[in-house]
C-alpha cells in the first residue's frame, strides 16, 4: 500500500486561549471514505477545516503540528492556499449555492482556476460534473435558472458538482446531510458511494448509521482528542475503547 494522501501529525488547534483539538494524528487514503464521528463540540468539524486551511478565515484560530498532502506540508510558508483548496474541495453543512445560475455555480471553480480553454470545454466540464453529482438529468433543461431555486437536496448535489468541477483529489464533507430530509440524504449517500473510487473523501457526521453506511474507516473524536481510529466495521462491531463503545451504543452524545 502506498503512502497516505493526507497525513496529520500531532495537530493542535486553538481558538484564542481555548484548545479545540489536542494532539490528533490521522492518515487518510485515496479511494477511501473516512468518517469522523463524535458528540457535538468534540472538534471533528474543526479538524476537518484544518485539512484545507479554512480555519484561516477565522480571526483568532491557530493550528500547530504538521499536515501533509502527498508529503507536502500544507501549512508551510510556500504553500499556495489557492492551489491547496483547488486540490482539497469542501462541501458544507448547509447547502450554499451562489446566487447565480446553475451553470455558473458549477463553472465558478473552472473559471477562477482557468481550467477551460473555451466555452465548449467549460460546458463539457459543467456537464461532466453535474452528471457525476447525479444532478444532470434533473437540471439539464434549466441550467440558466438560479441555483438557489433548487430544492435543498438538489442544492447540496449542486455544491458537490461545484466542488468536483475543479478535479480535486480530496473532498471534505462537513455534515452534508444534516439539513436534508431522508430521501435527499439517501441520494447523497448513494453519490458518496459512486464518488469513492475517484477521490479521498472525509465526511463529518452526527449520524452513526450514516457513518456505518458510507465509510470504510471511522475516527471517533471526543473532547478534542482522537479516541479511536480503525475500519468502520471494527469500530462499530468491536470497539476497543470503552468511550467509543458507550457512544456508538447511544450511552451519551
Amino acid at each position, binding site marked *: 500500500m502506498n503512502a497516505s494522501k493526507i497525513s496529520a501529525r500531532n495537530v493542535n488547534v486553538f481558538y484564542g486561549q481555548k484548545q479545540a483539538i489536542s494532539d490528533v494524528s490521522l492518515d487518510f487514503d485515496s479511494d477511501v471514505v473516512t468518517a469522523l464521528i463524535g458528540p457535538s463540540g468534540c472538534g471533528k468539524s474543526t479538524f476537518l477545516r484544518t485539512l*484545507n486551511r*479554512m480555519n484561516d*478565515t477565522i*480571526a483568532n484560530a491557530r493550528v500547530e503540528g504538521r499536515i501533509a498532502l502527498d508529503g507536502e506540508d500544507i501549512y508551510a510558508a510556500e504553500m499556495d*492556499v*489557492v*492551489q*491547496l*483548496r*483547488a486540490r482539497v*474541495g*469542501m462541501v*458544507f453543512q*448547509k447547502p*450554499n*449555492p*451562489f*446566487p*447565480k445560475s446553475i451553470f455558473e455555480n458549477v463553472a*465558478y*471553480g473552472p473559471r*477562477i*482556476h482557468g481550467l477551460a480553454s473555451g466555452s465548449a470545454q467549460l460546458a463539457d466540464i459543467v456537464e461532466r460534473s453535474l452528471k457525476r453529482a447525479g444532478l444532470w438529468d434533473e437540471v439539464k433543461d434549466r441550467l440558466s435558472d438560479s441555483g438557489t431555486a433548487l430544492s435543498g437536496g438538489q442544492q447540496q448535489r449542486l*455544491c458537490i458538482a*461545484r*466542488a468536483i468541477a*475543479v478535479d480535486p483529489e480530496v473532498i471534505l464533507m462537513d455534515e452534508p446531510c444534516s439539513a436534508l430530509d431522508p430521501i435527499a440524504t439517501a441520494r447523497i449517500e448513494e453519490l458518496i458511494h459512486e464518488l469513492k473510487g475517484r477521490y479521498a473523501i472525509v465526511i463529518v457526521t452526527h449520524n452513526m448509521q450514516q457513518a456505518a453506511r458510507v465509510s470504510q474507516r471511522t475516527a471517533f473524536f471526543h473532547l478534542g482528542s482522537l479516541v479511536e481510529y480503525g475500519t468502520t466495521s471494527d469500530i462499530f462491531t468491536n470497539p476497543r475503547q470503552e468511550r467509543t463503545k458507550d457512544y456508538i451504543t447511544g450511552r451519551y452524545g
Partner: protein
Amino acid sequence: MSILVLSFLVVGLGLIAWLTARMRAAGFRRATGARFSSLPSHHGAFVALWTVLPAALFLAVWATASPALVTDRVLTDPAAAQLPPPGFERAALLSEAREIAAGKSFGEPTPLAAKLAPAYADAQSHYDWIGSGVALLLAFACGAWAFTRVRPDFRARSKIERVIMALLLAASLIAILTTLGIVVSLLFESIRFFQMVPIGQFLFGTHWSPQVIDARDPGASLGALPLFWGTFFIGAVIAMIVAIPFGLMSAIYLTQYAHPRARAWMKPIIEVLAGVPTVVYGYFAALTVAPLVRDFAVSIGVSWASSESALAAGLVMGIMIIPFVSSMADDSIAAVPTAMRDGSLAMGATQSETIRRVLLPAALPGVVGGVLLAVSRAIGETMIVVMAASGVATLTLNPFASATTVTKQIVDLLTGEAEFDSPKTLAAFALGLTLFVVTLLLNIVALTVVKRYREAYE
C-alpha cells in the same frame, strides 16, 4: 383675560378636581374596605383630565377661529367703511390697527388705522371674554359631570388607559398631519402657478431667467429644464461618481479586510462625516474646492471656466454622501451569509475574487437601494449648492461650466422682495413640488428594493 391667566385657572380647576375626586374615592374605600378596580388616584386623574382636556381643546379651536371673528366685528364699525377694497393695502391697515390696539405701535400711525384701533381693542376684549367664559364653564361642567361618575364600581383605571392611548396616537398623528399639510399647501400654490404658466412649458422649457419676467407670457422665462438637468448633473452624476466608488470600497475594506481594531475606530470616523453640518461643506466647496477646480480648468486650457462650477459643488456633495453610501453598502455586504463567502474561499478563490464574484453580486440590490437613497439626499441637498453653485441656469454637459439646481433656485426665488402671488414666487412652490415628488419616488423604489433583498436572505 390673557391666555396665561386662563391656562392657570383651568389647570387650577383640574387640580381641585383631582383632589376632591381622590378624597371622595378614598372615602368609599374606607367605608366598605373592599378592593376596587381603581385606586383613588385613578379617580382623581380621571376627573382632572375631564376638567382640563375639553377646555384645552376648546381654547385651541378658539385661538384659530377668534381672529376672524374679531376682524368681522371691526368691519361693522362705521370707520371701516373708509377702508380700501380687499387686497394688500386693506390687510396692512387692519394689521396696523391691531398692533395699535395691542399697544405695540411704533412710529406715526396711519390716521385710518388709529381710528380703527379702539374698535379693534373693543372687539378683541369682547371675544376674549366670551372665550374665557366658555372655557371655564366647560372645564367646570365637564369636571362636575365626571365627578358624579366617581363611584366604588366605576373603572376609572381603564378609562385613563384609553386617554393615554389617545394622547400617544395624537402625538404620532401630528407628524403625519404636518407632512400632509405641507404637501397640500405645496400643491395649492403649485396649482395657482400652473394656472399662470402651462405645466408643459414649466417642465420642458429651456429658458430660465426669473429676474426678467414678461408679464404677458411668464412661462417663456420660467422653463425649468436647465434646473432639473443641473440638479441631476450635480447630485446624481458628479456626486455619485465620487460617492459610489469611495463609499463602496471603504465598505469592502471595513467588512472584509479591516482588522476588528481598525474597524472599531475607522467606522465611527466615517460616520462623523455624516454629522458635519452641510453649511461647513458649503464653505469648503465655495472657498477651497471651487477655486482649485477653476485653476485646474484654466491650467488645462479651459480659459472660461466658472468659479461656481458644477464640478466643485458636485465633488463636495459626493464627499458628503460617502458615509451614507458606505454604511448602506456595509449593511448589505454584511447581510450576505458567511456560508456564501466560505463556499467561494473553499473553491480556492482569493479574497478579492470572492468579493467581486460572489459578495458584490449578492449584495447588489442592497447597494443599489442605498445609492438611490443617496441620490435622493443629494438632489434635495441645499446648503452646498446655495454657497458653491451658480445662479445661472445652463443646459450643459461641461463640468467646468456653471450650473444651478432646483434647491438653489428655490432659495433665490423666495429670498429678497417679491409679492406672494407673482409667477416668480409661485414658481418656487412648483419647483418644490417637483423635487418632493421625485425624491418620494426615489425613496419608495429604493426601500422596496432593499426590503425585497433583505427577505431573500432571512
